[in-house]
């Protein structure tokens, strides 16, 4: 597998919601290439018939009793918000203007 291109890094940055500078793109393209080449060594392992593990613990469907518990007040929930307004989170526009 070959090193990653600068354009590919720019695409990854967009997918990752990271507004990288031109300098960062150059720097990361070289570094990510080295890292990806190294981790690609996992492909050397013959593992066609090996099941994947997503987790160390074989737990499934962990339930707790369905009981009401105290929760955060609106003030607590909004305490760390960058722009709280009228008991809500104010966010920048999410729809394009018509």
């Amino acid at each position, binding site marked *: *597998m070959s090193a*990653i291109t600068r354009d*590919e*890094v720019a695409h*990854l*940055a*967009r*997918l*990752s*919601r*990271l*507004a*990288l*500078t031109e300098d*960062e793109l150059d*720097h*990361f393209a070289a*570094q*990510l290439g*080295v*890292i*990806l080449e*190294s*981790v*690609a*060594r*996992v*492909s*050397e*392992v013959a*593992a066609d018939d*090996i*099941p*994947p*593990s*997503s*987790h*160390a*613990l074989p*737990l499934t469907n*962990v339930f*707790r009793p369905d009981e009401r518990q105290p929760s*955060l007040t609106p003030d*607590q*929930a909004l*305490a*760390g*918000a*960058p*722009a709280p307004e009228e008991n809500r*989170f104010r*966010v*920048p*526009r*999410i729809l*394009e203007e018509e």
Partner: protein
Amino acid sequence: MTLIHKSAAELAALIASGEVSAVEVSRAHLDRIAEVDEQVGAFLHVAEDAALAQARAVDARRAAGEELGPLAGVPIAHKDVFATTDMPTTCGSKILEGWRPPYDATVTRRLREAGLVILGKTNMDEFAMGSSTENSAFGPSRNPWDLSRVPGGSSGGSSAAVAAFEAPLSTGTDTGGSIRQPAAVTGLVGMKPTYGGSSRYGVVAFASSLDTPGPFARNVLDAALLHAVFSGHDPRDSTSIDAPVPPVVEAARQASVEGLRVGVVNEFSGEGYQPGVLARFHEACALLEEFGAKVVEVSCPSFRYAMPAYYLIAPSECSSNLARFDAMRFGLRVGDDGTRSAEEVMALTRAAGFGPEVKRRIMIGTYALSSGYYDAYYGQAQKVRTLITRDFTAAFEQVDVLISPTTPTTAFPIGERADDPMAMYLADLCTIPANLAGNAAISVPCGLADEDGMPVGLQIMAPVLGDDRCYRVGAALEAAYRDRWGGSLLEKAPAF
């Protein structure tokens, strides 16, 4: 011996008997922090008032005749990854600068309930990604053995604090070695419990299938006492194991390796290992045999692929976990001038708020999880994870514990690997397999390397829920070294 040089167990006994007050003990440690932390840089936040209030509460409970827990009144340094309602929780990141969580982590709550006195929050690599604390947005911590070297990471503020006698105990989290590696390079005991043995509730998530809170201490018994205080089932963490905590304190007191089968991991030796590290490791093997253990070589062939598998799995999980830092509900928001869309604000905030290593890992994870690459990268790494677990299972059919050096080298100079990710990743070479398989593993000091006089750590790995074995072997080695060294390793540390 001054209060700051005493063990946690000794301090708890002094407080329980009334010989000293919890306030005096906390005062002594806060004074020490004031004296040395400018040089060490272990703390991001010192909570003097809250600490003294908690200490006074312990003294009041004692005065009222209440039975106190085994660590009541003992001060502790708390890694800044754990949510604390009364102190900032930044994870070493600008994106969370000044953030105060609206709830306590389960580990935090249990520390408070046990009467431990939280002195403050310790520095760490941003979001626990790193092996040196150089990735902290607030500057690196320094190794008390040699201030020009790193204290390890990611829990490097926690290791520096305890090694510099600013606290007798500290907390950490271990995702790929972030407790054991800093403990090894500062001459401390550091334990990664079995995955699911300690709660992740309120721990800012890095890689959820790997993250494990655990203790730092200057001796094995203290680490076990702290382990017992904050571990155990937590209904708020769905990956928490619903089983009793293994008998770690009893094991630390038992301190015997008579008849124990010890396996030396063949794969963790040779090129890349510092000669002084290997010399101390071979000495430890001989010592274990001398005290009645049967030491044999064991091969775990898939361990060679643990590092590449880890550096696919951990970034994949982190790229998903860190999506929560979206500038909408909490933390930093940059560029919201009324003209930009939410998506633009998000991208500007994340670019300004995350450091280079976090950005690298988010992008590596995004790459590994994207369609077209998923099978070759993330899927294949998950299969390697299965093979590593099978290696452990096969090994533990032959032996009771596995041992290796904790790290290939001693603490490296600050700056040496800071912009070389692959060199930095090598620090976790020996510690990663236990994270991928979920095993218990500890690092205990085993002497100083001849080349540089820096501490060397020995790693002891045990099966899932075999945490007590780590403490049993660690305590036996500690007792043997005490006889040889005429005290603890930290007594050899240069005073600064």
